[in-house]
């Protein structure tokens, strides 16, 4: 009976490890949606997805990775964050020049599940045991780009209004599963995901929070 409990516990831990995704920053975005409805994020994989995709891997090998790509450079759209909020709770309009600094990082970001590890060298994050070389992330890696900008804007914020700057964007996402073999023995397995932000879009939204008495 003890053995059975131990086995159950090990199976539970294995299942938890399989579905826990060590995430890139993109998974903190407010909303991510695929242009193609059939695609899904790694964190949305169910255990049966893993089973199906593992079955599609080629046979064991003496040493190294076997990989399967389920979603290949799928276009995604996202709502990233609210960059700036200015609220005028007073009774007269505010005319002011606002300064803020923004950074646009079109770096490729990675996530992994199972016991596929991620590593970082400098500010580039990748997978351990050179999984990057096995999956097609060349496109993403060669286009990594960081852009900083001092933004300055003169704005008029009416009394009783709140101004927000919303950031949206588009990117490309690939994911799938992988297994690592040593002496034909499977020692690591799990899911991998690579994401590249290609474009960010900004919207200025001014909303009324109350109608001031003078209006």
């Amino acid at each position, binding site marked *: 009976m003890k053995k059975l409990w131990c086995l159950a516990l090990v199976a539970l831990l294995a299942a938890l490890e399989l579905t826990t995704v060590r995430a890139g920053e993109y998974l903190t975005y407010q909303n991510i949606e695929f242009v193609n409805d059939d695609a899904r994020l790694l964190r949305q994989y169910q255990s049966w997805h893993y089973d199906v995709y593992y079955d599609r891997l080629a046979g064991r090998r003496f040493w190294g990775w076997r990989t399967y790509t389920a979603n290949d450079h799928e276009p995604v759209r996202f709502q990233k964050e609210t960059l700036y909020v200015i609220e005028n709770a007073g009774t007269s309009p505010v005319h002011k020049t606002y*300064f803020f600094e923004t950074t646009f990082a079109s770096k490729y970001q990675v996530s992994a599940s199972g016991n596929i590890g991620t590593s970082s060298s400098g500010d580039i994050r990748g997978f351990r045991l050179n999984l990057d070389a096995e999956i097609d992330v060349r496109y993403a890696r060669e286009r990594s780009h960081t*852009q900083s900008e001092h933004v*300055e*804007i003169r704005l008029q914020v009416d009394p009783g209004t709140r101004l927000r700057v919303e950031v949206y964007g588009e990117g490309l996402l690939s994911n799938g599963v992988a297994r690592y073999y040593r002496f034909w023995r499977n020692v690591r397995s799990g899911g991998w995901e690579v994401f590249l932000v290609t474009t960010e879009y*900004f*919207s200025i939204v001014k909303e009324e929070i109350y109608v001031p008495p003078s209006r």
Partner: protein
Amino acid sequence: MFHRVASLCVVLTLSVAAWLLVRACTEALPLRVVTLETMHTYVYTSEHETFHVPVAMNDATTPFAMEEGIVRAYVESTCQRDRVPVTLVSVHEEGKVTRGDVRMHAFSYELRIGVVIQDGLVAIDEAELVLKSVDGNALRIPIGAFYYRFDLSEPAHLRLYDRHNVHAEPFGMPTSVGVIFRVRNGGDASLTIDDVSLGGSAVRPDMRALRRFEGDADPFLSIDTLLGRRYDALAPARAIAVSPTVAAGETAWFFVPFSYQRPLALHRYPLIISYTVEGETHQLVGDDFTMIRTPMALHESAAHREVFVDD
């Protein structure tokens, strides 16, 4: 002993030969600069404001890749009739990019306008950024169109509320192809909207297509859906047919598509609305704001230009 000296001589000779070969190969390569022709359109609101010119270069060691290597900068018309001094604030290194089979270095020149023209306007339809290096060389980079406006009208009647950019890729990379905006008539009399401008003529709103907008201003709305037909970026801009009226106290949404004179990128722009109230015309100038950010190296665009410089 003789063998040692001979080996050392051979190693030294080979090293010098290799160094000369590498140097000769490096020297033989001309400086290759890739740029993106953009509609640069700004409203002067502060002495601190800057703008960026992104480039990709095949040599990161050229004086044009470092602040201390550049001694002078100005924006000039291609015919060299108009010239505006600019100050180089910094050269930002933005990573490495691959164009075709060539690995290049992405940079961005952060610049500040060097003149202030009271209530005036700088307008250069075909502009080049000219950089002079410490070693006496000049680099002329086609940057597109360059407009700088120095009056920021903030009239009492009309207020600009929301600004949602509409984007598409008519020339191979994301660019602004229209805008959805919300205005509020805060005055006591109704007003008519007569014109909308982006501060220059290289890209202009097609005012004949201006219409009221209803629905949610989703940032991913398709320009074709908004127009109800296929969008043609290079179709000429038309004048307004009937000026829409905004009643006193009314908040109204509008959509207007943009017409390009030639392939350009438009990522940051002001919104200038001309309107008439009680027989008087006014202008509301909404400051320029970056609506799109995308690395130029990610795309193959008709707005890309290449410059080769032989030392």
